[in-house]
């Protein structure tokens, strides 16, 4: 009888086999995959570098493991990257024309050693980039990193044509790159080409002068133009690999897969096990510069774990650096070993609540200011967030070019002030003849554990400090975005913003300018988000972007911030992000503020490593 029962179980399993066995017969898999099989996590292969270097025994090899967060990396195609995981990999396997220092976010030489700028008669700015000529394309061939050869057998050198190809591929409508809009709004002709208005590539303000010189023309003269030219969407890309040529098979969408991938940065792709890990290997052909040194660590692996499992792996000694989950913060701070490995670093993001400035009740600036001043940001940070975040007094994160700092503008913006908040609200209540409890207010956020905790705490602050009962509503992310960027924008909503390039323009103008990300417009009128329309403010944004004197520029942005958070109180700035990390003591590292690490600057002390 039982045997029959097991026959059944067997049959069920057989079904799963049949379903699982629907294996394609002809879909090509990279040939090299077979060679790269690594026995269960143990790296058994020896990295033989092409330059004569001593063969490193695996146990002595400097190998670093980090965590990236759950879920597969969406892409490692520079033209397509939108999120920090993708850009982390891309930033290590390619180098832009310029590069930002990961700590200071200052623009430094990348593949271009120098560049010069000319302001044209029509107000556009042409920047000519002079490229280095000693960097070759490389690929991991299954056992070692090798130079990519052209059809004549010579190493392919990264040149201006590759950059031109990369930029044009990003802009091509068929590529459907999401971040193409950053080039679209800053480069001459880029938007028309991207939207299909024209299919003539010569209308785009990008021109190859010679093999190692490329000129880009920008719509307006701005301090941040070289930074935009250094963004991942403008990296050099291997046209022969994507589209194919006489001696290379075209790989199309699949060019970023293990075995196919080619790059030229300090690291290159070794293996990408989807949904599990991605491993980069040192590029021995990378010629070190002052700001991009030759990597010391041979191999870097990112796991794709949720925060808590990653923390467990860190404590088990399998991951070398990890972001501390909020839940473990109290324990880490009290633990003598872990607290010594704990570092807080700034992160260039701002967390804020926005108002629908045309919705009932919050269409009065006094109410908005009162709600903003009644939020005890420090208490929220100490008791809920616990990550030593900084209370935000305005929107643009200090440290960005053009953004005011707490040092030079200590009194700028808005902060916790119950007395003033009560007075503002009372003045409104007297006028409309209502009590605080009668105000009908709704705060909406997208469903997430973290946002919920913050919303619950702020809800309580409003109740305690102002006597206002604010309803909390949450919506699932995609629905939420539709809601807050449409006609039904709730009275109060939440959003966050992280930098794309390190300039105040990326924060304040791209969010609250007309048709900004947090202030969408339709038919020439605000439609959703902040529903904010202040022509003086908008003119100020343009003016500040063009200002050349850095000191004056900061003052101009300071005045704009004052309007945004206090005079008009369009948003409640809540906190500026920090990153709370644990790093094993044997790792020497830098702490990036922009979201992605430059591992080539890290090192591992093999003697100290257990």
């Amino acid at each position, binding site marked *: 009888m039982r045997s029959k029962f097991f026959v059944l179980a067997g049959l069920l399993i057989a079904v799963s086999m049949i379903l699982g066995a629907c294996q394609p017969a002809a879909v090509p898999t990279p040939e090299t995959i077979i060679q790269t099989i690594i026995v269960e996590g143990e790296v058994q292969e020896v990295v033989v570098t092409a330059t004569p270097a001593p063969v490193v025994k695996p146990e002595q090899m400097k190998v670093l493991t980090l965590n990236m967060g759950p879920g597969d990396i969406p892409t490692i195609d520079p033209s397509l990257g939108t999120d920090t995981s993708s850009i982390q990999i891309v930033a290590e396997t390619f180098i832009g024309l310029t590069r930002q220092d990961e700590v200071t976010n200052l623009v430094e030489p990348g593949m271009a050693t120098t560049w010069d700028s000319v302001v044209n008669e029509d107000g556009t700015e042409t920047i000519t980039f002079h490229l280095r000529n000693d960097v070759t394309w490389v690929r991991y061939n299954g056992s070692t990193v090798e130079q990519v050869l052209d059809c004549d057998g010579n190493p392919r050198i990264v040149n201006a044509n590759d950059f031109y190809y990369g930029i044009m591929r990003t802009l091509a409508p068929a590529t459907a790159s999401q971040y193409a809009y950053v080039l679209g709004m800053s480069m001459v002709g880029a938007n028309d080409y991207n939207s299909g208005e024209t299919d003539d590539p010569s209308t785009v303000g990008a021109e190859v002068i010679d093999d190692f010189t490329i000129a880009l023309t920008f719509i307006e003269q701005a301090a941040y133009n070289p930074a935009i030219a250094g963004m991942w969407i403008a990296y050099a890309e291997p046209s022969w690999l994507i589209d194919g040529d006489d001696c290379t098979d075209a790989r199309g969408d699949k060019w970023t897969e293990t075995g196919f991938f080619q790059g030229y940065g300090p690291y290159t792709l070794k293996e990408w096990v989807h949904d599990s890990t991605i491993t980069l290997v040192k590029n021995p052909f990378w010629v070190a510069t002052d700001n991009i040194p030759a990597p010391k660590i041979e191999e870097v692996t990112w796991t794709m774990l949720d925060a808590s499992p990653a923390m467990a792996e860190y404590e088990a000694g399998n991951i070398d650096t990890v972001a501390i989950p909020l839940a*473990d913060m109290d324990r880490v701070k009290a633990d003598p070993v872990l607290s010594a490995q704990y570092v807080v670093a700034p992160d260039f993001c701002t967390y804020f609540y926005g108002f629908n400035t045309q919705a009932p009740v919050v269409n009065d600036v006094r109410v908005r200011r009162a709600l903003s001043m009644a939020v005890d940001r420090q*208490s929220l940070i100490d008791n809920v967030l616990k990550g030593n975040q900084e209370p935000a007094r305005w929107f643009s994160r200090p440290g960005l070019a053009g953004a005011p700092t707490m040092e030079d503008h200590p009194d700028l913006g808005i902060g916790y002030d119950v007395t003033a908040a009560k007075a503002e609200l009372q003045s409104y209540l007297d006028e409309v003849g209502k009590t605080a409890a009668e105000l009908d207010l709704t705060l909406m956020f997208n469903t997430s*554990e973290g946002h919920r905790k913050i919303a619950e705490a702020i809800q309580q602050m409003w109740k305690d400090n102002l006597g206002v009962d604010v309803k909390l509503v949450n*919506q699932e992310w995609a*629905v939420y975005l539709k809601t807050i960027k449409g006609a039904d924008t709730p009275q109060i909503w939440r959003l966050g913003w992280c930098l794309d390039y390190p300039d105040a323009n990326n924060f304040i103008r791209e969010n609250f300018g007309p048709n900004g990300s947090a202030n969408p417009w339709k038919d020439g009128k605000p439609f959703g988000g902040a529903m904010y329309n202040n022509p003086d403010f908008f003119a100020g944004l343009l003016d500040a972007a063009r200002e050349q004197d850095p000191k004056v520029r900061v003052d101009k942005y300071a005045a704009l911030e004052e309007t945004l958070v206090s005079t008009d109180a369009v948003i409640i700035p809540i906190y500026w992000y920090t990153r709370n990390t644990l790093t094993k003591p044997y790792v020497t590292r830098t702490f990036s503020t922009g979201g992605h690490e430059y591992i080539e600057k890290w090192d591992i002390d093999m003697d100290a490593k257990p």
Partner: protein
Amino acid sequence: MTQPVSLENNEFGAGGRPISVKGESLFRDSVRRLARNKAAVVGGTIIVILILVALFANVVAPYPYAEQTLVDQNKLPQWVLSLFPTMKPYAQLSSDYFIGADYVGRDLFSRIIFGARVSLTVAFIGPLISLLIGVTYGSISGYFGGRLDNLMMRVVDVLYAFPSLLFIILLLAFFRSTFAHPTPGTFTYTMSQLDSASGGLLFIFIGIGLTAWETMARLTRGQVLSVREKEFIEAARTLGAKDGRIMFRHILPNVVGPLVVAETLAIPGYISTEAFLSFIGIGVNPPTPSWGSMISDGAQVIRTYPNQAVFPALALAITMFAFNFLGDGLRDALDPRLRGNQ
């Protein structure tokens, strides 16, 4: 109308045997048998207590469920610390909270008490919906068989072929967005008001209700299929009993045992569905507490503050025990052949 043949005092009992020598009704017999089952009585008592606690939560709970004292967050009393000594290095003590406070300084004990409302509602409404629809559907399909059975089962097959959790997530996204901005006075407005009044539970019920009954229908049909072939049904039919009577008097009492068991087995499923929805962030609206959301909140901090996960989980486990023992007792009582007498 033909005179229904009374089978109660007939020698053809529910199992084809005399079910009672005294001639008492099936129901009274069942109650008596249930009362004799100690485990079931204990289970039943616990459930009654839980229901009372849930009904009078505002009287029983020492604090309102939403009251936060941020500075008291994660505080706990001495006895909890003694229970989980790993918290020693960082634990902040406070005797104000019986089993500690949560991440924003709300009393865990009060939240568990209020959370019983949500979890018990889920535990009762879920099975009720699925029993009502499922058993009716399944018995009709199984009893009449043939084309009707085939048609009805294909409908179930379609619904059954949906992954229920995914279906609930899709439905929730659909309902919550469709009913997000209704105009007052319309049906959608009423629905949305009901939903927010229930802390977001209404749509969860509808989601669970729409997905849960198919299992019950299939199970009922399977049971009815095997029972309807039995001799005593033939006998009843020969004696001229009508379909309805055969179904309710003869078939249902014989199949109800496994159904009740399956339903008590499913209760943890409903509660954990709610917990899962809370885990992925689309459960009840904050600050409404449910055990599911408390467990999923607590699980995040399980290494740092184990009490925040253990106590809600304990509340859940006790409820499960109670439901299961009561379920067993009910089954034994409803199906007289199952009396434990060996």
